[in-house]
C-alpha cells in the first residue's frame, strides 16, 4: 500500500502523502484556497465554510480543509459554483463587519481584506444597521479585543487550548450576536497569548505592544532567530527606518512550529534601548579607530609581562562568529589561558514543555562549543570570574557581551590594568572599562547561534547597526590586526566557513541564502 495518493485538482494531477487535506494539496500546486478557520498548526474546525470546493461525485460542496484526499479524487477549486459559494460566504461575513480599515491594526495583513479583494469585489445587498458589540475589551495583560471585527473563526480559542494548553477563550451568545470572551473566571494571561493575534485573520485581537504603533505596510521583514532563550524560535523581524517594531514567529516544523512565547516577542526592545552607540576611552567618547588603538596600547604591556593574568570572556548572548573571532584572537594569537563564559542565570520557572526554556541565553551551547574548540574545556562561568576578580588573580580582561556583575566585582574590574569591552549596551562594567567598543545587536548582524538541541540557526541583519557600532567580530578582528595578528574577514560567511571546519559540533551547519529586503505588504506572508 503506497503512502501517497494521486488526485486531480483543476485538471492538474498531483501526488501527496496520505492524510493530506485538499487545501494543503492545492497549496502544493500553488493554489491558495481562501480560508479563515483553518490553520496548519491547529485542529480542524471547518466552521467558516470559506474553503468549500467541488468534488466530483459529491452533490454538495465540501470544506477542503477537512476532506482528506482519496485516490483518483477530482477537485474543482475555481469553477463558477465554487466562486459563487466563496462570494456568498464573504458577503455573510462582511454583513456585520465594521468599516474599520483605516483604524484597524491588521489593515494590510488582513485575510478578510485579501479574500474579498481576490474573490469577491461585489457590493453588499444588505443595507441595514450593523450589529454592535464591545469595541475595546481588555482581555488580559497583552491583548485587546474588538468584538465587532471578530468573524468567529475560533482560531484563537483553539490556539489557547492547543498551544498554551489552557482554556481561556470561548464564544458566548448565538447567531449574529455571537461574541468572543474569556472563559468564566479567566483572563487571557498565558505566556503564549500573543500567538492568538498572529492567528486571528482580522483585527479583532490586537497586541497591546503593537496596537496603533505602526502600519503593517510600512514594515520590512527580515528572517532571523529569537535571542530570548536557548530554544531559538525562528522569527521575522518587522522593522522600518532602522527600528524594529515587532517580532513574529516564522514557521519551522523542527523548532517552533508556528509559535513563539510572549517574552520572546518583546526581546526586540532590549536590543534597541540603552545601546552603546560610540566607542569610549576611559569613559569619554572616542572614535572607534582611536579606541581600538588605545585598547591595543593598554593590552600590549600586559601581554609582554603577565600574559597568564589576562582573562577572556566569551558570551552566551553573542553569535558563534563573534565568539569564534574572540577565540582566535585570545587563544590562537595571544595564547591567553584564562577563559570564562558569561551567561545569564537560568530561570527554572520558565521551563515548560511547549517552547520556553530555563536557559535564557540564546547561544550558550555555541559559546561552549567554540571555546571548547580552542582547548578551553575548563571554562569558568561568571561566578568563577567574580571570584578571580575579587581575589586579584587577573590583571587584564577582554570581555565580549553585555555582562552584568555585582557592584564590588565591577569595582575590582575597574582596578585592572586593562579592561577592554566589546559590548552592545551601556552598563556599569562599560562605564568602568578602559576601552568600550560598540557592538552590533542581534537584529543588526549576520551570524549563527546554536540552540539547546545543537541546531545552528542563521540570523540576518535587518538594518545597519546603531550609531558607530559594528559587528563584534569586525571590532575584534580590527583589534587583532592592531596587536599584530593577521585576521581578515571580508564578510561574515568567511568566518562561518572557517568555523564550521574547526568546530565538530557545527558539522553540517549551513549559512543559508541571503534574503532580499521585503516590504511586508508585498511579502504576502501574512493576511
Amino acid at each position: 500500500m503506497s503512502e501517497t495518493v494521486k488526485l486531480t485538482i483543476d485538471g492538474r494531477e498531483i501526488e501527496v502523502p496520505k492524510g493530506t487535506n485538499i487545501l494543503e494539496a492545492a497549496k502544493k500546486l500553488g493554489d491558495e484556497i481562501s480560508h479563515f478557520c483553518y490553520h496548519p498548526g491547529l485542529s480542524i474546525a471547518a466552521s467558516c465554510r470559506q474553503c468549500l470546493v467541488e468534488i466530483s461525485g459529491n452533490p454538495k460542496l465540501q470544506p477542503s480543509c477537512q476532506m482528506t484526499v482519496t485516490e483518483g479524487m477530482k477537485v474543482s477549486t475555481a469553477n463558477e459554483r465554487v466562486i459563487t459559494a466563496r462570494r456568498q460566504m464573504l458577503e455573510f461575513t462582511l454583513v456585520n463587519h465594521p468599516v474599520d480599515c483605516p483604524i484597524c491594526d491588521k489593515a494590510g495583513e488582513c485575510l478578510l481584506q485579501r479574500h474579498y479583494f481576490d474573490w469577491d469585489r461585489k457590493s453588499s445587498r444588505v443595507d441595514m444597521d450593523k450589529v454592535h458589540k464591545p469595541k475595546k475589551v481588555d482581555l488580559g495583560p497583552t491583548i485587546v479585543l474588538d468584538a465587532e471585527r471578530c468573524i468567529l473563526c475560533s482560531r484563537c480559542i483553539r490556539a489557547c487550548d492547543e498551544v498554551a494548553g489552557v482554556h481561556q477563550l470561548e464564544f458566548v451568545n448565538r447567531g449574529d450576536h455571537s461574541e468572543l470572551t474569556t472563559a468564566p473566571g479567566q483572563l487571557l494571561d498565558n505566556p503564549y497569548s500573543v500567538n492568538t493575534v498572529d492567528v486571528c485573520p482580522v483585527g479583532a485581537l490586537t497586541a497591546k505592544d503593537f496596537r496603533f504603533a505602526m502600519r503593517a505596510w510600512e514594515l520590512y521583514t527580515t528572517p532571523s532567530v529569537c535571542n530570548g532563550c536557548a530554544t531559538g524560535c525562528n522569527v521575522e523581524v518587522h522593522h522600518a527606518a532602522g527600528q524594529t517594531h515587532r517580532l513574529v514567529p516564522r514557521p519551522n516544523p523542527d523548532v517552533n512550529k508556528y509559535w513563539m512565547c510572549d517574552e520572546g516577542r518583546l526581546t526586540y526592545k532590549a536590543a534597541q534601548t540603552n545601546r552603546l552607540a560610540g566607542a569610549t576611552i576611559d569613559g569619554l567618547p572616542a572614535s572607534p579607530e582611536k579606541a581600538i588603538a588605545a585598547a591595543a596600547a593598554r593590552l600590549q604591556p600586559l601581554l609582554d609581562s603577565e600574559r597568564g593574568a589576562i582573562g577572556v570572556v566569551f558570551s552566551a548572548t553573542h553569535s558563534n562568529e563573534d565568539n569564534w573571532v574572540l577565540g582566535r584572537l585570545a587563544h590562537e594569537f595571544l595564547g591567553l589561558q584564562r577563559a570564562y563564559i558569561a551567561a545569564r542565570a537560568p530561570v527554572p520557572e520558565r521551563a515548560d514543555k511547549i517552547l520556553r526554556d530555563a536557559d535564557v541565553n540564546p547561544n550558550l551551547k555555541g559559546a561552549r562549543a567554540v571555546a571548547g574548540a580552542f582547548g578551553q574545556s575548563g571554562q569558568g562561568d561568571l561566578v568563577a570570574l567574580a571570584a578571580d576578580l575579587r581575589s586579584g588573580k587577573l590583571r587584564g580582561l577582554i570581555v565580549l557581551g553585555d555582562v552584568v556583575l555585582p557592584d564590588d566585582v565591577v569595582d575590582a574590574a575597574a582596578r585592572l590594568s586593562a579592561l577592554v569591552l566589546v559590548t552592545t549596551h551601556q552598563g556599569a562594567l562599560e562605564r568602568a572599562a578602559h576601552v568600550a567598543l560598540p557592538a552590533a545587536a542581534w537584529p543588526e548582524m549576520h551570524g549563527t547561534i546554536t540552540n539547546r538541541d545543537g541546531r545552528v540557526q542563521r540570523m540576518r541583519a535587518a538594518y545597519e547597526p546603531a550609531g558607530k557600532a559594528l559587528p563584534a567580530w569586525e571590532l575584534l578582528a580590527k583589534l587583532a590586526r592592531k596587536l599584530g595578528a593577521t585576521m581578515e574577514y571580508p564578510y561574515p560567511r568567511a568566518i562561518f566557513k572557517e568555523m564550521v571546519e574547526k568546530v565538530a559540533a557545527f558539522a553540517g551547519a549551513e549559512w543559508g541564502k541571503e534574503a532580499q529586503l521585503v516590504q511586508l505588504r508585498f511579502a504576502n506572508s501574512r493576511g
Partner: protein
Amino acid sequence: MQEPSKPPVPVLPGVPAQRTVVLGQRGAQDLDSDGLPTEPMKINMGPSHPAMHGTVRMVITVDGERIRDADIQLGYMHRCFEKESEYATYTQIFPYTDRLNYVSPLCNNVGFALAVEKALDITRKIPERAQYIRMIVSELSRITDHLTCLGASSMELGAFTIFLWMLKAREWLFTDLEEVTGARLTHSYVRVGGVVADLPTGWIEKVRDRLTRVEAVIDECDQTISGLRIFRDRMENVGPFTREQAIAWGWTGPALRSAGVDYDVRKDAPYLFYDRMEFDVPVGDRGDCYDRFMVRMIEMRQSIKIVRQCFDQMKPGDVIVDDGRIALPPKNEVYNSIEGMINHFKIIMDGIRVPPGETYSYSEGGNGELGFFIVADGSGRPYKLHCRAPCFYVLQTAGAQIKNALISDIVPVFGMANYIAGECER
C-alpha cells in the same frame, strides 16, 4: 561641413608682412603659432551654466575657438527613479514619471500607463473615451515640449522674442492642462486603466479656440525665425548626421527624423487610436540642427491637427476600465460600506498586482521613443523598471557633433538635442 570661401585678409598697420591675422570668421585659420606659444585649454562648462538647459557638465578642450575634445558628464539630476520605483506601487510611480521629461509630462504618464496595461494584458479593455483623452493630453504635452525646446534654443541664439512668444503659447496650454489635471506641470493625470477624471465641461470648446491662437503663434514664430540669415547660419550644417549614423547611435524622434528616417512610433506601432488619425510625419535630410528645428516646428502643427480630430471623434463614456482590481471604487461606497473600503484599501496599499513577466512598451515621447521595460513579480510594485530615455542617446553624440566646431556651435547642438535632464538621467 561646408567649406566657406576664403575671406579677405586685412593687413594691420605696423604689423610685419609675413604675419597674417584673421579675426572672427567661420572657417578662419587659427593664430599662426610662429613665435607665439599656444596650447589647448581645458574649459569647464557647467553644471550650472546659463546656456545649458538642465544641469550638465562639459569639459571641453579648446584650441582658440575650436573644440578639440568634449567630455559630457551627467549625473547632476540623477534622482534614482529606477531604484525608487522598485519600492513604490505602480500608481505611486506616476508622479515620478511626471518628472522624467518634465516639459511633456503627460507623454511620460501615458507611456508608463501603457506599459503597465501591456503587462496586465488589458490594453483592449481601456474605454475609448479614456484613449482619446490620453491622445489629446499627450499631443498637447508634445506641443509644450516643442515650444519649450524651440523657444529656449532661440533665446540662446539671441532671438529672445521667439522665446517670449512661444512661452506665451505654452502658458496657455499649461493653463488648459491645469484645468483638466490640477497642476501646470506635475500632472499625474493618467492611471493604469484610464485617466483620473473626465474633461471639464466646456473645456473642448475652450481648447479649440486656444489651438487656433497657438497655431497663429507658431506661424508667427516660423515666419520670423526660420528664414533668418543669422539663425540659419548658426544652425545649418551644425552637427549633421547621416541616416546610418543616426540609426546606429540609437537616435529616435525628431533627431532621427531630421536625418531622413521616417520612424515615428505613432505610425509604425500605433498605440491608443493613432491609427485612426490622419497626420504627417516631417522628415529632414541633413540631420543637422536646422532640420531638427524645422521638424519640431512642423510636428507642432501636426499635433494640433491630431487634437482637433480627437475632439471630432470622441464620444461620451467611461474614463477608466471597469475592473475592481485596477480602478478605485466610487467614494460613497468607500466611505459607507466595508466592501468599498476593502476594495479601495487593497488597491492603494497593495498596489495593482501585475502577473510575473517582463514587457517592453514604447510610445512617442516629445524627444523620441520613450520605452518602459517592466519586470513584474506578481506583487503590486515592479521588480525592476527601466526607462529608455530618448534624449540619452541623442546627447551621447553631442560630443561628436561639437568636435572641431566652434564654441558657439555648442548652443544649437545642445538646444536641438533637447536635453531634458529629468529624462536623460532619471
